[in-house]
């Protein structure tokens, strides 16, 4: 039930609210300044994560109520220290399928350098193609292959197999920087994933690197966006403390007395009731 509740929070509070701003900024990107475009990409990153992992949590939690154990689909991917770790933690069911039925039959990471490069590009491009027949998805896949290749070729793709900052409250500076760089790379790739076409994605990227980089973001309802950022911060804190578990809220408050634990769950329900957008918003992955 905790997993279902957290799934609803991710979908309704995080994803659906981020969607409002991501849509506004991506749909009017030519009129936005650089800082607004950065925020737009940031909101989209949390929209797609909240939407899809929320959906997965609801499905996994519901199945468990009926005694069916489904595999974990997301393992806190935004806390990854490199792209290889990200892909071990994002959409695990699909990645595992591609690994078992495509990557390994192709030869995997065995063979010469050219074979490794070929296999990496094939798997990432097909993964992009799986999302839709649009060049944006192909480029998104290819870009991830480009991110992944240096790690593969230097044999560093399996450096970060354990959970970040295990049994610690905070990451080290190095871990924090690695997570930040990985997150930025992922955000850049999401721009291609979200944009209408390649031209729009490139325009979006070029406009980010303009003189308006240091200006205040300008878009409609900036005050509401600030509230959403506070909610995202709350979300990240809960996800961070639960990163060693199956899902973020698995052990949250387990040592508390029941009334306090229930108060926390009730507070999550309350946040859903207060921040749920009025308009219905379908799951993004329903289109794939």
């Amino acid at each position, binding site marked *: *039930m905790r997993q279902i509740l957290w799934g609803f929070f991710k979908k309704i509070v995080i994803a659906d609210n981020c969607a409002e701003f991501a849509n506004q900024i991506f749909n009017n990107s030519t009129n936005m300044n650089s800082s607004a475009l950065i925020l737009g990409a940031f909101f989209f990153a949390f929209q797609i994560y909240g939407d899809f992992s929320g959906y997965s949590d609801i499905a996994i939690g519901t199945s468990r109520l009926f005694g069916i154990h489904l595999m974990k689909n997301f393992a806190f991917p935004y806390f990854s220290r490199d792209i290889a770790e990200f892909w071990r933690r994002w959409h695990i069911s699909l990645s595992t399928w591609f690994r078992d039925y495509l990557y390994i039959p192709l030869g995997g990471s065995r063979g010469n350098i050219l074979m490794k490069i070929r296999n990496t590009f094939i798997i990432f491009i097909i993964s992009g193609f799986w999302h839709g027949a649009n060049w944006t998805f192909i480029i998104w896949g290819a870009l991830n292959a480009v991110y992944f290749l240096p790690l593969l070729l230097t044999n560093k793709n399996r450096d970060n197999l354990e959970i970040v900052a295990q049994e610690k409250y905070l990451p080290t500076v190095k871990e924090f920087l690695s997570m930040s760089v990985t997150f930025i790379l992922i955000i850049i790739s999401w721009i291609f994933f979200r944009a209408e076409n390649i031209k729009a994605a490139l325009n979006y990227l070029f406009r980010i690197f303009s003189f308006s980089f240091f200006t205040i973001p300008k878009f409609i309802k900036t*005050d*509401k966006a*600030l*509230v959403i950022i506070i909610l995202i911060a709350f979300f990240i804190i809960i996800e961070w403390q639960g990163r060693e578990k199956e899902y973020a809220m698995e052990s949250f408050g387990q040592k508390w007395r029941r009334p306090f634990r*229930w*108060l926390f*769950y*009730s*507070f999550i*329900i*309350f946040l859903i*009731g*207060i*921040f*749920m957008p*009025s308009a219905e918003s379908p799951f993004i992955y329903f289109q794939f």
Partner: protein
Amino acid sequence: MKKFISKIFVFIIFSGLFYIIFLFFWGSCMPSIFKPNINYTIGSYGHLYSRLDEVKNKKNIDILFLGSSHAYRGFDTRIFSEYNFESFNLGSSNQTPIQTKILLNRYLDQLNPKVVVYEVYPHSFMVDGVESSVDIIANDKNDLLSLKMAFKINNIKTYNTFIYGFIRDCLGLNKKFTESTKKGRDTYVSGGFVEKKIGYFKPREFEKKTIDLKQVQLESFSEIISELKKKNIKIILIYAPIPRANYNSYSNNIYFDKLMSDYAEYYNFNEIMKLNDSLHFYDADHLNKNGVSLFNKKLIEVLKNKE
């Protein structure tokens, strides 16, 4: 299994109580950006609080006006008084049939009107009614009818605002509230009309749109008409004038006219009168003082002819 179900049941009661209590504190203490789903504005735009305060003392009138802002800004009860019609205007912002129904349930018997003039604006049938429902919740009493309205609208904002408003009513927090008759350019006139300081609309282009009515609104509308007919109250449906450019932006006005004519006696004043967009309106929707005067006199002419 039994233990699991009973635990869930206790948790639902626990979290339900927490939700209600915390909602009240959150609604009372937090700035509006932190409570997007509690929209409680007592004394809101449109003077609904004053109107509903006044209606409680009204009885046995000749004409009752219903509808959206086109009604409370379009039917000047003073003009009707000049022609010996005692009237009251029960319009409210963006009032949809769902809200009209609740207002009629509360005040129709007491007002006992001979005629109901119901302003029907296509947009009021095209929206979910959330905006108008929270307006009524904040400015009128909250009872079982409000709860029924909330269920019909089925929107989290209406539910939250209802819970918040209900607790405020129970604690008597609105007893000392008074609404000023003058707010900005608006003046509340006894009888429910809101007069806007004279202004002129600067004509502009409107995006083309199609009238697409919501089934749930049509159902409520149908129920209202049946109820009024059952009580032998004469019903006149009015499509109040809007700027020509706005009116023409609807591609299927004929469909709307035909539909309304099927329900009751219906007049589309956009076809009956030829008003000037800038001289007779103050914005994209509402008549100015000059427009109201012309429109009301024409309506009275129609009413007199029917007598």
